[in-house]
């Protein structure tokens, strides 16, 4: 049980972080379909960075520092990659769905091409394995109680940094002047413009934050749940995050709840073979994999009338239009 809940947290944190990435972009009026691609680039950049630092002789004792440095690097990488999307969507007023699709095609292709050509391999790994470098609370600790065991035994610091970032950015989006302005640009950009807000700038900021978050999400995903392996894929996690975002109705608190539910399912599919009770039910792991998507579809069907999707998302802002 402890193990299951721990796993759920590991799956949930990158999921909600990337879903929040989607919120920042869509609230500013840009549909970010490229979440999956940005995650892939983030995971690739992070593993490449860690590997490079390891080869340069970074001491193992400072593993936590390396992990956090990697987080910063991947945030920058993700933000830079997302500039491709914002440039096409804001400056060129191109179709955002096509731009996002293009980045989703580009990211795995570039990652795999470099891994193949430069490292002569089909996947990029760090030296040694991720737990031995970065996992905390691995020793024989005495029991910390049920909650304590879940939270502080065999954990990664990035999980909690991720949660902190999630909370801080959610507060910024909902409780500050900047957040209000950003959301205005996704609801009614003309109105926002009429009171002197620079819609283009706000959309650039929203998408860039989105890219940074998705990059970090990809990195956290690859380090904590995929043993720091980059192989040009995050197994549809970016699209799952999109589902979480819609399921959570573009609101941080709902997304956190939805993300936990989805993380649980994702986790069930990963561990169901090891838990006797679930194994005896005889439900295929692939069914657990499908479940989040099916639930999202059903929820969409029932709630589409009440959907709180930002009204101006996907529409390029044109100053001359009314």
């Amino acid at each position, binding site marked *: 049980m402890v193990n299951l809940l721990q796993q759920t947290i590991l799956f949930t944190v990158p999921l909600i972080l990337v879903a929040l990435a989607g919120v920042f972009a869509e609230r500013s009026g840009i549909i970010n*379909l490229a979440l999956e691609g940005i995650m892939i680039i983030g995971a690739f950049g992070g593993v*490449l960075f860690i590997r*490079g630092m390891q080869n340069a002789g970074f001491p193992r004792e400072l593993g936590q520092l390396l992990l956090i440095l990697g987080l910063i690097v991947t945030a920058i990488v993700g933000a830079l990659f997302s500039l*491709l999307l914002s440039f*096409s969507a804001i400056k*060129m*007023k*191109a*179709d955002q*769905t*096509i*731009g996002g*699709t*293009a*980045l*989703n*095609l*580009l990211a*795995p*292709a*570039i990652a*795999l*091409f*470099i891994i*193949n*050509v*430069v*490292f*002569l391999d089909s996947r990029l790994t760090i030296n040694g394995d991720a737990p031995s470098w970065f996992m905390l609370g691995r020793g024989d600790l005495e029991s910390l109680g049920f909650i304590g065991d879940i939270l502080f035994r065999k954990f990664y610091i990035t999980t909690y940094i991720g949660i902190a970032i999630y909370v801080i950015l959610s507060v910024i989006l909902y409780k500050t002047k900047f957040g209000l302005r950003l959301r205005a640009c996704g609801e009614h950009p003309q109105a926002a413009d009429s009171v002197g807000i620079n819609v283009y700038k706000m959309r650039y900021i929203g998408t860039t934050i989105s890219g940074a978050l998705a990059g970090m999400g990809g990195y956290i995903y690859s380090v904590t749940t995929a043993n720091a392996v980059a192989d040009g*894929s995050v*197994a*549809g996690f970016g*699209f*799952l995050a*999109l*589902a979480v975002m*819609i399921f959570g109705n573009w609101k941080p608190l709902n997304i956190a709840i939805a993300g936990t539910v989805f993380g649980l399912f994702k986790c069930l599919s990963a561990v169901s073979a090891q838990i006797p009770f679930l194994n005896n039910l005889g439900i*295929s792991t*692939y*069914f657990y*994999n*499908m479940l989040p*998507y*099916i639930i*999202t*579809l059903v929820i*969409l*069907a029932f709630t*589409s009338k009440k959907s709180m999707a930002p009204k101006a998302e996907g529409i390029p802002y044109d100053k001359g239009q009314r």
Partner: protein
Amino acid sequence: MKNPFKKKLALPSLSSDRTKTIASSLVSIGMGIVFGCLLLFLIACFDQFISDYQDIPVGQSFKGMLVIILGVFSSAIGGGISTAYLIGDMLFRATPLIMTGLSAALAYKTGLFNIGAPGQYLMGTVTSISVALTLGMNGVNGFISWIVAFLAAIIAGALWGCIPGLFKAFFNVNEVITSIMTNWIAANFVTWFFSTMKQFQNTLTVNKTGYTITTGTYGVATPKLFLNFDGSYANGGILIAILLAVGVYVLLNKTTFGFELKACGSNKNAAKYAGMSAKRNIVLSMALAGGLSAVGAALYYLQGDIEYSWTNAYMSLPQVGFNGIPVALLANCNPIGTIFAALFMAYLNISGSQLRILTFYDSEYISNIIIAVIVYLSAFSVFFKSVINGEHKLFSFAKSKDGENDGAKNFIKRFADKISSLKKNKNTVAADKQSDSAEKECVKEDNNG
């Protein structure tokens, strides 16, 4: 009001809209290839700083560029696989691309963005393989099995495509979101299905796990007809794909039904006002798009010798499905154009695999990179057209003085004029440098203005 006959009477000229569309597609293609070549060069320059494993000589990058451009003809510089075989391979790879391209194009023409092609393609895959194998095992004639498997795949794809259509029509949910969901449901379903259905797994070949039996084992294979091409996989499937492309063209442009579909796409409310059922048309066009994608899968896997690897299918969606989108975009959603766009994509794919064989670059993903860049740039077609027209503000000085806007033809001439006038100004500044400072200030201002 516009004169409806004007368009018909006007002779096709350089400045016609169609020419500009093709030109902007060519610009995207050119820039994509240039980007790919640049990447090869950069990697050759910097690879030794990233890893100790490989140091590609810069000379190899030029060979690589040549291979990318030569594509199916690249065996001319490196030997290996014969050109005829590569051309056959290109035709075979183009077959499913034509179908997914048609799927995306048809949906786009009717106002929908079908990103669900990978899922529909997967449903076509699983249906065509399992039906063909089941019938084949039970001793049904190969030809009949082929037909039944083909039709079953169409039905499966159409039903799968219906789902986003129904959600759009009855719940007003964006089809992009539902398509993404159905894609991943299909991906998990495929792995689930083949992992349970032991009779379709190839357990006879040693060291091969996770592959299905080829349909050719039971005599279900697309006839090769006259398309031999040095023993490549090319077969009659490409002809079926071309026929279907023509069929979609006729459907969209020459029938009432096609007109209704397009009308609902361009203005749902106007179509409703004219007495068309918008809901029915949305569902039908998604079903058609789904069926077309599934045909792509059927034509690919019913070739007879293709094994399907299902073990990792739940982790990644088939690239062919997504590549339908660039095919449709490059073809400007013209069904006939998709044939050529798909052939071009297949050509690029061959370039990628040839790069792997002929040079030190051990990867075929360069073609995916180029395709991705082309998709990215193809979204700028409006911008490219405006540049060709000389309308864009970046190139506003390209307008002639009397305000007439006569396109790219005189662009270079005007550019030269502008430069020479700038030079003149510079000379004036230089000459005035000797004169007093107040005057100099004046000229500077003039120059800036």
